[in-house]
């Protein structure tokens, strides 16, 4: 994609391209690296100026992220010496651990809602895309446009109606409500992307399976799905990234049971002063699942992006 001539790139242009890629990688990775490093700093190091690149690492941020703490009298502290390494960290500030924080729960909510809505979007999207690709559907083009049109305004523009609707339906602050909402937003993307992928799969494969004695659904399941795996994987990544990172709806519609990590992480700031290391630790852990998911599927993602452009 980056070559402008049909001939092989020269050493100089290769060097130039390499430098550009490295520069770009650096620029995008510095904030990430900064967040990850800050997670291991003490609160004092985190806000020192000029910023410290070399510092003594501590797990304070992570301990603070996963716990709630209370200040205690000197008598109490003297009577109860710290039992564990994380209690010792907290003792520096004359505090004791009162219990686990809500981060674990919120993170689990993110996993349930993120992966749940991704699965549902892909499941419905694949079936719909297959139908649009293979069957004669009355007004198919209009339906496809209608599906796409749900993406034509920022989702937050409909936040208030959805908020009211959810309150009436009892879907506010529920896992189901958030899964349905994210699925509704993602499904247009899923249908359009997957239709493109399925269009590329020759019909003859299914017809061969039909002839070989399979039903239409078996043909879809055994022949089309394996062929569409690349497309499904890359679509799943896009859906997950949206659902995982979504902030506005999560703030508006969840407060307790179904609150996801994005609206929760900023609330850490309010507990016991500006606890940047804890926020950074939360952000780091929050990044991991999407990173692992993307890395695991990255081969498919690359092939998915160039799919259709390269015909074997």
């Amino acid at each position, binding site marked *: 994609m980056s070559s402008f001539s049909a001939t092989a790139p020269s050493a100089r242009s290769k060097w130039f391209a390499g430098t550009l890629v490295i520069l770009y990688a650096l620029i995008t990775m510095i904030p990430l690296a900064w967040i990850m490093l800050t997670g291991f700093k003490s609160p004092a190091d985190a806000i020192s100026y000029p910023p410290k690149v070399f510092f003594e690492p501590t797990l304070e941020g992570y301990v603070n992220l996963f716990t709630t703490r209370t200040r205690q009298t000197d008598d109490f502290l003297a009577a109860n010496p710290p039992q564990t390494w994380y209690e010792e960290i907290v003792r520096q500030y004359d505090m004791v651990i009162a219990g686990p924080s809500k981060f674990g729960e919120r993170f689990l909510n993110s996993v349930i809602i993120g992966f749940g809505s991704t699965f549902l979007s892909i499941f419905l999207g694949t079936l719909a895309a297959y139908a649009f690709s293979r069957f004669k559907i009355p007004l198919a083009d209009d339906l496809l446009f209608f599906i796409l049109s749900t993406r034509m305004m920022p989702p937050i523009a409909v936040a208030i109606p959805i908020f009211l609707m959810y309150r009436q339906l009892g879907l506010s602050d529920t896992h189901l409500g958030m899964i349905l909402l994210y699925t509704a937003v993602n499904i247009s993307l899923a249908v359009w992307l997957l239709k493109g992928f399925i269009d590329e799969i*020759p019909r*003859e*494969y299914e*017809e*061969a*399976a*039909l*002839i*070989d*004695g*399979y*039903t*239409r659904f*078996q043909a879809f399941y055994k*022949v089309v799905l*394996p*062929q569409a795996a690349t497309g499904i994987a890359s679509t799943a990544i896009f859906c997950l990234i949206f659902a995982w990172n979504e902030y506005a709806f999560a703030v508006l519609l969840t407060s307790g049971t179904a609150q996801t990590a994005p609206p929760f992480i900023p609330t850490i700031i309010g507990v016991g002063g500006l606890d940047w290391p804890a926020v950074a630790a939360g952000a780091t852990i929050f990044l991991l699942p999407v990173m692992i998911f993307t890395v695991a599927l990255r081969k498919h993602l690359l092939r998915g992006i160039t799919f259709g452009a390269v015909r*074997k």
Partner: protein
Amino acid sequence: MAQIIIKNVRKEFGDFTAVKESSFTIEDGEFFMLLGPSGCGKTTTLRMIAGLELPTSGEIYLDGEEISQRPPSQRDIAFVFQMFALYPHMNVYKNLSYPLVSQGMARAAVRAKVDEVAQILGIENILKKPVGGLSGGDRQRVALGRAIVRDPKAFMMDEPLGALDAEFRERMAEELRALHDRMGATTVYVTHDQLEAMQMGDKIVVMNNAVVEQFGTPQEIYDKPATMFVADFIGSPSMNFLPFEGAVAEGAQTVDLTGNSLSVPRQKQGASGKLVFGVRPEHVSLSDSGNYRGEVLASEYLGTTQIITLDTANGELKARVPASQTATVGETVGLSFQGDVVTLFDAATGRALRSELNEGIVAHG
């Protein structure tokens, strides 16, 4: 194995009629060719027999059973696709065993059957290979193998040699025909290549514009064309058409072409107006005695024969004559026609007039 009867089958896609009421019978064990130019409805007909399309109206009988509305899985018909359609995510063995697995056959029996088929086709050594890296010929063999592995009642083949290069096509055509003769399975084969149809087929249906033009053995179709389309489509170079205006009476054995009386098979049908005198190039000879004359425009040397293009009073005409015969461009020569194999056509309808030659062939068309 089975007999297939196509009865008044019609297929419409919205406003477009792909096949108009068509009827013909494919006898048990026949190698049957569906021949026609692209878009004539031959592939649609084949797909209707297999169940990949359902006819809008009409009946299809397989061994006496009406199957036109059944799903393909309930027809026991195998299909070989033009682009082979081998399952790309499976290796050769899995591709071959797939139709057997769907029937719930035991693993050992599947193994034995696949091995047997692989041996017939000479592909035992590639069973473990992914289908992606195979040569065109091997893909073709695997596609055939997948069709024959479950001993279906009939085979449908949609231009199976179309994706192969010319040199290889001939060899595969022979292999296919040999395979058919060995198995004796009813085979319906779609092609747009008239040579392939003539070489391989026991019977041919010629289709054009959604209509069956003629149905018969290769010899019948070549020698006794029912319509001008068939006469033109079959044979290379195709039949000469000399248009003339006049009349033929029932029982006549000559026609008058611009003052020359030319013999024709005894006519069983009188006609007048715009008519066409149809004669194949090999039935035209150059003879000084002939009083029907033409001017030599060009000659193409083909080894043992040559094709001479002539300009006559009724238009251009090609003659296939021995290569040894000399013909100089610009020279005017006499022509004679082998009268007993001439076909007269009605120019308006394009249909052949009934005569002693084609009686019984043309009548039903």
